[in-house]
């Protein structure tokens, strides 16, 4: 097994490093995406980023720039406080999702790209990560990680109790906007190589695993990152040895890891109920 991993790292060093970086940062941000109950934002921003990449490729601009510009435009729209409005944020996300997904396919169908390029654009392929992709990932993810760790407290308070946070001197609108901007740029950078599905998987599946297992925020974040790294390693290994599509294999590995947490969570829930009854 170690020989296979060594061979994998030697053959595709960029894919391994990029995979681990995308996994860690997306899983970390995903914890807050789930807690904020904006799960749909992950897949929508991924689709919007893919659409931006398609536009950039058609107009011969750098793909990352196209993805970031369109994603940030969507973030600016979504930052509008929908809490007390008749149209919920989820409905706007749904509309943007439908528009971005359709537009991506329409744009690439008119582009004259080959099937492989279209597949890579729409679904991504971690194994094809280039040195340039890795540079973009590093340049975006390390500051994103630093931002997140440095400003976790105001971000958490803004999410946890918006009004109380405002009264205490936190500016919830600002911190929410900054979080979604970091999320948007991260997703735009990750989508080019990881594709919509894998980015969404990192944002949702593995943080869910961590939330089932732990009730302490720091532990949830650490568990989410460990699980994401494990899913990536298992997926890359299985994909390399059995010649399977990389991204989808990692997604299945992530779901298998999540499945492991379900019985643990169920047992814990039953025990808690039992203890509560005993106390009563």
């Amino acid at each position, binding site marked *: 097994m170690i020989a296979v991993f060594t061979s994998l790292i030697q053959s595709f060093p960029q894919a391994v490093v990029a995979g681990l970086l995308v996994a860690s940062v997306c899983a970390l941000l995903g914890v807050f995406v789930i*807690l904020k109950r904006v799960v749909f934002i992950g897949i929508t921003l991924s689709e919007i980023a893919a659409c931006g990449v398609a536009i950039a490729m058609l107009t011969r601009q750098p793909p990352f720039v196209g993805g970031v510009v369109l994603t940030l435009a969507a973030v600016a729209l979504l930052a509008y406080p929908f809490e007390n409005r008749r149209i919920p944020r989820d409905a706007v996300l749904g509309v943007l999702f439908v528009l971005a997904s359709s537009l991506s396919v329409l744009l690439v169908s008119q582009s004259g790209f080959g099937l492989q390029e279209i597949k890579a654009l729409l679904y991504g392929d971690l194994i094809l990560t280039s040195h340039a992709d890795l540079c973009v990932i590093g340049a975006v993810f390390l500051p994103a990680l630093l931002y997140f760790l440095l400003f976790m407290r105001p971000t958490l308070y803004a999410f*946890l*109790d*918006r009004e109380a946070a405002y*009264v*205490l*001197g936190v500016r919830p609108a600002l911190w929410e906007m900054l979080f979604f901007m970091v999320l948007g740029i991260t997703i735009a950078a990750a989508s080019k190589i990881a594709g919509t599905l894998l980015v969404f998987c990192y944002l949702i599946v593995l943080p869910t695993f961590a*939330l089932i297992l*732990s009730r302490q*925020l720091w532990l949830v974040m650490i568990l989410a990152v460990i699980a994401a790294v494990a899913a990536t390693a298992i997926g890359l290994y299985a994909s390399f040895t059995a010649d399977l599509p990389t991204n989808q294999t990692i997604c299945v590995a992530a779901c298998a890891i999540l499945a492991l947490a379900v019985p643990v969570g169920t047992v814990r829930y039953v025990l808690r109920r039992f203890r509560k009854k005993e106390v009563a």
Partner: protein
Amino acid sequence: MAYGRQEVLHDVCLEIRAGTLLPFIGPNGAGKTTLLRAILGLLKPRCGVIRTPFHRSPPGYVPQQQSIDPLYPVSTRQIVEMGLFPQLGWWRRPNGAQRKMVDEALERFGLAGHAAKTVGELSGGMRQKALLARALVSGAEVFIMDEPTSELDEQSEKEVLEHFTRLCSEQGKTVLIAHHGIHDAGALAAQVCLVNHGRVRLVSADRMRADMADSKLERTALL
């Protein structure tokens, strides 16, 4: 003050002296919460000015509803520590004295044994007590509380109201409290603030009690 085109309160002219305990009473939907939210700066008045001392020290705020999503894996202690944000800022950890203050606040509201529990594991009353403890540790000069005892049992309600009355009389803190119990409100302070029909006025508690005895309060204030 208004929500969109719907005007809730108008011609409000209110001066609240420091060190006052002022209960806000009125029927559901009268605008008590709107008025308190406006004082907190959460709602901008359509016209006019609200002057507060909150630039010096943020108020201790206890919201009406269960404002914290039970999904969050944060402990009761972490919720109470949130009240220390004005002193701690973005990065600092609570020092010994601040941790002691949190312990005392947890103890005062009977949460010492539940400090490690998450929001989802607390009952409605305990969550409300956690929010009260959070307001208390903030070291605020002004406390603004919107129905802070609505989820509490009778004994806890009495203790909480007594505690904030003492804070006012012994430490000179200002306490603004939207309260559902007209009888209790009259007993809490010398003056009460009646909110109804979009208007706000201060009434002496003695007069309110006299009105209540004559059953006039329903006519004068609540209808």
